[in-house]
């Protein structure tokens, strides 16, 4: 393998895969990046791939390839080296004993590598047809759902976001829940999303990478496709392949409350600030705060036998009976910060029934939080 490539191009490719290469993985070679140089297109290309076996990222970068070939090297070290190189052309050359010779201007490194044959076979994706979706819409959907997915590995079917097509509206729905709260967004994302006839669960890590890919630069279009237990996303020259979670997503419809007794409108900012103050004296494990609706005001309070009491008030348009409910402030803050909307509607039914949070400017976003017994 022998090629030249611009420093910035190489750096972009290497920085993109840093989150994927897992230092603590059981297979040491997964800490490496796979370099594959081919001379097929025009002058040639360098493909950079990394995988943790769940999520695979592959980027194709323009390069002048004089000798096709492949090699793997420690991804982090290679990245650190390239980051410090002068802004110039980088010459890469794989030597016989699996070393990568790196030259740039007057700098010279030889980096110990491992033969490409040792690298695990990367998942391939055969579905020819992908569907273009609007990146910003997709980013919003991820942002508004991913936080609610469970990080508890024993609940593996909740470790991701469920995505399905709603037959009535042809909208795409994303839902996530950890068993205590739930977040849901519907959007017109694409019609006929390939392979999505029955709904799939995308793992958190895959979604985080997808979000990163969207945020990376002004991607104008993301291609999506699903096939079997694999999901694919492509932006420009970068391909992301995610192993989907095999498991049944719970019947979430049954926990979205249909009837709601009470409703109050709140400024999201005011609520966030009040919660951030009150949570300071809440129980550190449960993060429980008490919401009390009284005529014209909402009080939020916390109490901790070791620390003391906290209490904050917000004006609300409410004239009903006094009502109180316990809620995990962490869950509320997660939801409110993900919504990024000016106002939020809080809908309640009883102190033991799910509480709904709805942004006022969007009928297709919904969050549900189960109360706490106080």
């Amino acid at each position, binding site marked *: 393998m022998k090629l030249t490539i611009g420093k910035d191009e190489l750096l972009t490719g290497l920085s993109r895969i840093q989150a994927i290469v897992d*230092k*603590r993985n*059981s297979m*040491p070679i997964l800490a490496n990046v796979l370099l594959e140089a081919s001379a097929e297109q025009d002058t040639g290309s360098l493909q950079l791939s990394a995988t943790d076996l769940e999520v695979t990222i592959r980027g194709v970068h323009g390069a002048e390839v004089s000798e096709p070939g492949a090699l793997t090297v420690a991804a982090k070290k290679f990245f650190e080296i390239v980051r410090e190189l002068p802004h110039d052309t980088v010459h890469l050359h794989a030597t016989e004993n699996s070393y990568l010779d790196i030259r740039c201007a007057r700098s010279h490194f030889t980096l110990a590598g491992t033969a490409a044959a040792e690298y695990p076979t990367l998942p391939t994706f055969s579905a020819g047809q992908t569907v273009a979706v609007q990146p910003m819409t997709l980013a919003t959907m991820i942002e508004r759902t991913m936080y609610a997915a469970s990080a508890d590995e*024993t*609940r593996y079917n909740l470790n991701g976001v469920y995505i399905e097509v709603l037959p009535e509206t042809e909208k795409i729905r994303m839902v996530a*829940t950890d*068993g*205590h*709260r*739930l977040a849901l967004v519907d959007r017109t994302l694409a019609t006929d999303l390939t392979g999505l006839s029955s709904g799939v669960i995308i793992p958190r890590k895959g979604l985080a990478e997808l979000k990163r890919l969207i945020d990376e630069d002004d991607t104008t279009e993301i291609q999506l496709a699903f096939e079997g237990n694999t999901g694919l996303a492509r932006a420009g020259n970068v391909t992301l392949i995610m192993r989907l979670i095999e498991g049944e997503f*719970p019947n979430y419809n*049954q*926990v979205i409350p249909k009837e709601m007794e009470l409703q109050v409108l709140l400024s999201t900012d005011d609520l966030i600030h009040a919660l951030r103050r009150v949570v300071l004296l809440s129980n550190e*494990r*449960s993060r*429980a705060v008490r919401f009390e609706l009284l005529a014209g005001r909402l009080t939020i309070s916390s109490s901790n036998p070791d620390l003391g009491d906290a209490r904050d008030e917000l004006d609300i348009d409410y004239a009903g009976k006094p009502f109180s409910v*316990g809620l*995990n402030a962490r869950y509320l803050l997660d939801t409110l910060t993900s919504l990024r909307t000016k106002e939020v509607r809080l809908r309640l039914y009883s102190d*033991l029934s*799910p509480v709904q949070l709805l942004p006022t400017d969007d009928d297709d976003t919904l969050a*549900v939080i*189960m*109360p*706490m*017994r*106080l």
Partner: protein
Amino acid sequence: MDAFYASVEQRDRPELRGRPVAVGGESRRGVVSAASYEARRYGIHSAMPSFEAKRLCPDLVFLRGDMVRYSRESRRIFEIFREFSPVVEGLSLDEAFLDLSGCERLLGRPAAVGERLRARVRQETGLAVSVGIAPVKLVAKIASAAAKPDGLLEVPPQRVREFLDPLPVRCIWGIGSVAERRLADAGFLSAGDLARAEDSLLEKLFGERGIKLARLARGEDLREIEAHREAVSYSEENTFDEDISDRGLLEATILTHAESVARRLRRDGLRGRTLVLKWREARRRSQGPRGYPLHTRQTTLFEATNDGGEIAREVRRLLVQAHLSAAVRLIGVGVTGLEDADAGQLPLFGRAEGSERRDRLNSALDEIAARFGSGAVARASQGSAERAGLSLQIKRGEPPHSNG
């Protein structure tokens, strides 16, 4: 911490500095729990019988020790640890794992962090601490021992094998004297011997455990650093007077154990999510008390429980799935994955209808049991084990009551 208890004593009592000091029990069966470096020169080490330590060094200053003072000191030290990492897993009063991954940009290189931590502890407490840095827990622990006294040892990822290979297998977690002997018989003396062995050979010799040990010997320790290591499990088991193969009796015994474990969970305000069935076959495979093969099966519930009926139902399901073919001499029920019962968070899914009612019923039963004894009320199916004339030699296991 280096010679923790002894160092605290030497710090607080200057007249002890430079002298051999041991802290431990003074009774006939007492053992040394910490020895100063001066004492170690005489060959004194922790876990050594106290009388032997005194014999080795007649000048030894032997102290009963003051656990209250040591734990106060421990809290101060752990607070310093937490300045360096949000994830601190305490192993004992004077030993902890700190997770520095992802902190490099914030704190600097691990070795530099380690030196700063050592300086901070010394400045705040006047005590010496040794630091081991490695990509995995096992290696970090061995490195910290090797760094003593008052040192720091970093084992970078590419050096892990080089570091572990020459060490005796005994250094690997999970290898005690019995396993050490068995490994030695098979020609495995050093960690390197284990690391280099073929998985297939290890599996043949030691089963799945062999593969796991080899993985540790290669420095592949996947356990994350756990900030909270809490109460582990509640369990109850019994050895039958005669071997039992009657399914009904086994199920009744499971219910008895499940009810009792559940009652203790409720007493301590806990619920558990992981349920364990344990049994020992009646057919002896080898000599000794462990000669009867022991088996366990476990399942994890969606929501934690402290209801005996629910525990029994799930554990009986494990029993069915285990397809017992022979009689058993011991059966037990355990609950782990504990959480606070009154954490109060209600689940969206899962807690079946009626669970509130069952909670109320259980607390009523607990009250009756508290007043009239635990035999006063029993489920209809529960008494059959006793009725069949089986005496249950019950053994209970539960975590020590501690406040961290």
